[in-house]
């Protein structure tokens, strides 16, 4: 058994190491001022200084964050309201909408991107006199298509778990429908909304294909095409190596993600312990009575 356990651990940590190796490699070479990786030219923080004076990367970073925030918020609002509304609709209509909602989930990203692009091209040709309508707005629409279905899928189970009588009760007790949704429904589904928001944000951050297809000019890029981190890195590595400043950025992103994951794990553990002690005290009380 012990032998089995050792083998299992070796296997798990070996795969983990292989998955992380490329990231660690970049991080290691972020602490030197060599222009290419694989060549150590002494320890230095030069690349971090370069990063914060590299306008191209900062603009891309800014674009990425702005786009991710706006698309995540918008998707969460549309998806959440949609889930609430659809929950109260007839079953036939609900099934139909849910099937349409499932299309972007199972669809390949590039097919989605292509379909949006041909539609935008068509609209530009026929309604805007041949002008291109590609802009921040088309990009935003693309990112929302990525995220909205997942928001819906995150919120819906929470609605199903909810006690439907509570909403009716709040109406009977004099709440207006808006207030009832706000005071009774939303608080019960808030975990689903938050996980939907987080998921939309990360989907947008990581996206390359939809961005490359649907972007136009705007945001911090001004008159030129919007560059996000994904498109910028892709353009750079198509021609050569990963830009040295990006190595410093990788370290920073990695640290941020690490902090989030660690604090989330601690939160989950504390929550689990809390529920365990609650259960424990419940047992005691029952025994005492």
């Amino acid at each position: 058994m012990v032998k089995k356990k050792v083998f299992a651990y070796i296997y798990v940590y070996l795969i983990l190491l292989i998955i992380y190796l490329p990231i660690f490699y970049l991080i290691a070479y972020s602490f030197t001022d060599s222009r290419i990786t694989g060549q150590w030219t002494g320890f230095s923080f030069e690349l971090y200084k370069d990063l914060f004076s590299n306008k191209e990367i900062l603009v891309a970073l800014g674009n990425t964050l702005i786009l991710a925030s706006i698309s995540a918020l918008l998707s969460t609002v549309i998806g959440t309201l949609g889930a609430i509304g659809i929950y109260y609709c007839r079953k036939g209509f609900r099934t139909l909408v849910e099937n349409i909602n499932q299309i972007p989930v199972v669809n390949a990203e590039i097919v989605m991107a292509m379909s949006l692009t041909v539609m935008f091209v068509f609209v530009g040709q026929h309604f805007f006199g041949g002008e291109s309508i590609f802009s921040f707005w088309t990009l935003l629409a693309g990112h929302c298509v990525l995220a909205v279905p997942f928001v819906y899928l995150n919120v819906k189970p929470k609605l199903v778990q909810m006690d439907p009588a509570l909403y009716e009760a709040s109406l009977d007790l004099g709440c207006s429908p808006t207030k009832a949704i706000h005071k009774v429904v939303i608080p019960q589904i808030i975990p689903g909304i938050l996980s939907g928001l987080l998921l939309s944000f990360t989907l947008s951050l990581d996206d390359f294909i939809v961005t490359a297809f649907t972007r136009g000019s705007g945001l911090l890029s001004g008159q030129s095409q919007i560059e996000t981190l994904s498109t910028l890195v892709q353009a750079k590595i198509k021609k050569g190596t990963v830009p040295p400043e990006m190595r410093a950025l990788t370290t920073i992103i990695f640290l941020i993600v690490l902090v989030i994951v660690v604090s989330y794990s601690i939160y989950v553990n504390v929550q689990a312990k809390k529920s365990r002690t609650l259960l424990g005290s419940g047992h005691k009380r029952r025994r005492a009575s």
Partner: protein
Amino acid sequence: MKYKTFRKGLSLPFVVFLLLFVLIPIFFIVFYAFSDADGNFSMSAIVDFFTSTTKLNVLLVSLLIGIFNTVLCLLISFPLAYILANPKFNKNYVLVMLFVMPMWINFVLRTGALRELLSIVLKWFGTTTGQHPLFCTMVGMVLNYIPFTILPLYSTMLKLDNSQIEAAKDLGCNPLKTFTKSIIPQAMPGIVSAAMMVFMPTISSYVISDTLSEGKIMLFGNSIYLSFSNSDWNSGSFMSLIMLIIIFVSMFATKKFQRESEKGGAAW
């Protein structure tokens, strides 16, 4: 009554959004696939596709690489998920989080990093990444998609019925038979959804194959991207339509499969 229409009305933006940006674009794909550059009905995109050996080759290579990658990812992730979900080995959810964490670091950046690392490693063996496009692409694919297979497998493994596995052992199954007759059937829904998470994205991927094979391996995704950069909407749309058909066929096939496994579960 008024209240009921109000709460239904909340879904209006959502429904309009789905119509405008999900359903209608798909009709545009169909429209462009069956028309020429002037917008007249034409079968030229279809004829082009099925008479071009390069494009048919791309389809074949994509399907093969897709299957290969799916099998590799499942082979690596299956024991991994089993270990992670088995309380005898692992009680900590943090380890699972660690496998998912790379997904939060920009994947284009990760792909670029992998190429730099591979070029160093291959230099030790006296070759370059450009000389082994298939090897590099496969490494990139597997590393990128392992997290996607671990999650669905892990969540079904958590639900494995241990008493059934023990019963199989007690009733005289050897470990191999226990595995094929009890563990695999129980984990089947997870295997199917993990496979779906890998297969389609692999075929339609662009960045990984383009970066790691130095443009030498064309997958279906690369092909669609190429027609996008050439503003060749008609053939791009037709290829997207083929992708859509493949997706729906595999969805349909697995749906039937999953329903069967559910039925099996209900019979127990």
